């Protein structure tokens, strides 16, 4: 087991960090997230130019043929500055599903365009009343003379209003399948709105909306969706690591400079000990999330590893998000200061694809089936 990055990976990290520092090193995020689509199309274009948007796709599909470690590096840098660009949503999740399941023609049509930045897909999966299940609940697909039509509502769909292409889960006779729906399809109504963390979601309504089956196999896609969600959970874990690290360093910096009662706050041991506990949470989460990425890389039990990463990240991000505000005091509550945005984003990440207690329930259900957890196995 080996946890260090090779030279190329370090170079990727530095390049992405540099790009994002230019884009979000100052106060740009508030401005960018104030108007639709909630991210900066120019930054998106620059990420495409750097090759970041095609990282996980096969070279034959127009991608870079890189792996989950490279994806994790990008996600972590995104988290570090809270870049609102939908990298995980569009590239890892929606793009990943097309990459996994698409026909040659679909992959050729979609993935190159995603990599170039000219097409942004979104995964429309969550439905009103659903709770992180991998299956569709009430959106249905019907075949109509060789072509498909979808009916029902998906909400909230991250980046669903801006997306050029929707990857949609829908029920056909009890099975969940995946479909591609063009952003300008007839019978498609999208109502976008702001999430609490400044990103965007949408209500996406289908009313006999024409759709194309993703891939050519007829089977149920629940397991494939679960696996794609697991990979996205791990990637979100890295975004959370980046965000937690900034929240902690910002807090430490504040404690070193802010004065009260005539001395800087780092003279108050009760506060510095709490910062130390934040560091402990961060480092333990980091280890678990990095390990989960290696499990994805090795194509091990990705779903279980993602649950473990999610549980650890959920606990850590709540701890760090809350303490970062509390240790700042009033300033931490304001939208003009950055630390509260980190807490908001960490809260969103925690709830996007399953929270800590949800992951814990799944792990608890299997706890009698093994003697010990062996990460080296």
């Amino acid at each position: 087991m080996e946890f260090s990055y090779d030279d190329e990976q370090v170079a990727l990290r530095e390049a992405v960090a540099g790009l994002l520092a230019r884009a979000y090193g100052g106060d740009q995020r508030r401005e960018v997230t104030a108007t639709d689509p909630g991210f900066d199309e120019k930054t998106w274009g620059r990420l495409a130019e750097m090759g970041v948007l095609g990282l996980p796709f096969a070279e034959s599909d127009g991608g870079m043929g890189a792996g989950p470690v490279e994806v994790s590096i990008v996600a972590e840098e995104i988290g570090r500055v809270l870049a609102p660009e939908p990298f995980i949503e569009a590239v890892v999740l929606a793009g990943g599903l097309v990459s996994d399941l698409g026909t040659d023609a679909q992959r050729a049509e979609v993935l190159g365009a995603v990599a170039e930045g000219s097409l942004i897909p979104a995964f429309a999966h969550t439905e009103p009343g659903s709770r992180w299940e991998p299956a569709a609940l009430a959106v249905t697909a019907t075949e109509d003379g060789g072509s498909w039509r979808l009916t029902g509502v998906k909400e909230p769909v991250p980046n669903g209003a801006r997306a050029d292409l929707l990857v949609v889960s829908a029920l056909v006779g009890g099975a969940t399948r995946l479909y591609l729906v063009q952003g300008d399809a007839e019978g498609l109504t999208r109502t976008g709105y702001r999430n609490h963390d400044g990103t965007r979601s949408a209500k996406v309504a289908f009313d006999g909306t024409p759709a194309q089956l993703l891939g050519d196999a007829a089977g149920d896609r629940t397991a494939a969706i679960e696996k794609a969600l697991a990979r996205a959970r791990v990637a979100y874990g890295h975004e959370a690591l980046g965000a937690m690290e900034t929240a902690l360093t910002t807090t430490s910096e504040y404690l070193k400079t802010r004065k009260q009662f005539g001395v800087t706050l780092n003279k108050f041991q009760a506060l510095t000990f709490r910062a130390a506990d934040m560091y402990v949470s961060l480092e333990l989460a980091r280890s678990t999330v990095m390990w989960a990425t290696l499990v994805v890389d090795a194509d091990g039990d990705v779903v279980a590893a993602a649950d473990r990463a999610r549980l650890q990240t959920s606990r850590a991000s709540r701890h760090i998000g809350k303490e970062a505000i509390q240790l700042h005091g009033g300033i931490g509550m304001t939208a003009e200061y950055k630390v509260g945005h980190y807490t908001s984003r960490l809260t969103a990440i925690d709830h996007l694809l399953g929270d800590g207690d949800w992951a814990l329930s799944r792990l608890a259900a299997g706890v009698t089936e093994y003697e010990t957890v062996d990460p080296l196995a």
Partner: protein
Amino acid sequence: MRLQLSPEDQAFREEMRAFFTSAVPQSIRDTVAARRELTKDQLVESQRVLNAAGLAVPHWPVEWGGRGWTPLQRHIWHEEMMAACVPPPLAFNATMIGPVIAAFGNQQQKERFLPPTANMDIWWCQGFSEPDAGSDLASLRTTAVRDGDHWVVNGQKTWTTLGQYADWIFCLARTDPTAEKRQRGISLLLFPMDTPGVTLRPIELIDGGREVNEVFFEDVVVPAENLVGEENQGWGIAKFLLGNERVGVAPVAMIKRLMAQAKQHAAEITVGGAPLSADPLLAARIAELENEVLALELTAIRVVANSADGKPHPASSVLKLRGTELQQAATELLVDIAGPASVASFAGEDSDVPGWARVATPSYLNYRKASIYGGSNEVQRTIIAGSILGL
């Protein structure tokens, strides 16, 4: 030692419950129940309904509208009000400046200010906190310089909650910069927010709300008669005011309302064919939280019974500390029950995400303030360690 309320207190409780659930407009109470923001008019209307019935300022001296209740009755009044989703009287008026004027003001100030303060004819805001002061109030920098029969105020305040609605401000300013102890040389002044030289800048909070403000003073002229208490004795007044802030602060009924809502929503959500409320981990989390709220409520009753002399019982700090923690835990529970819908905070009315789920995360984020404002939880721990344990 007795479990039940006395017959008198039982009757009092029923009277309060009947009043709050009938006299205060349903639309106002529905807004509170839905955790939506109240308008200025709603807040004023609600307090006037209470005031007309003698229920706005029951803890004031009797001659100014107080009721001479026992601490337990005040507790019951507060809890029934909160349970009925009635907005409590504006703290700046009822809990802060009203009692201060009643205790430290001269007769003319009492007559001039107390009736309109009780009735919300004046909306007050606070001018205590400053950008570089935080919990360290003694380091404030706003100055008031005497010029004939006026004070001239310069400086800046912050965290002025609902300052955008305020008619008047009560303001701590340094009136003797030469005082040896920093706590000396501070005075309390009152002046209208539309006095020339007063400007207000809203501060957006992390939930997107704009409830707090910065207030700037540039050569603001305040008549000398608007000084409360004695010159340079503002520190004692401020301590009196902040002490009151800690009395009866445990937001028990509000937390219980959130818990009841959480249980109801969890019962309505289906996971794998069963209601979410049947999930053993969630049920245990709710049961544990309810038990902690019960302990808080019982402690509040114990503490109010020992606060009869009007001074805050040191254990009041337990109520503030634990009350805000549990309030935060309840708001967090609602976010988790909302689950994947909890991100959709600013969805419109046509959204399929229910209103309670939309408001869940902003409310959770907003309530991070509870353990910071009004004497942070670090301040409360300092009080407990120092005043109670002697450490």
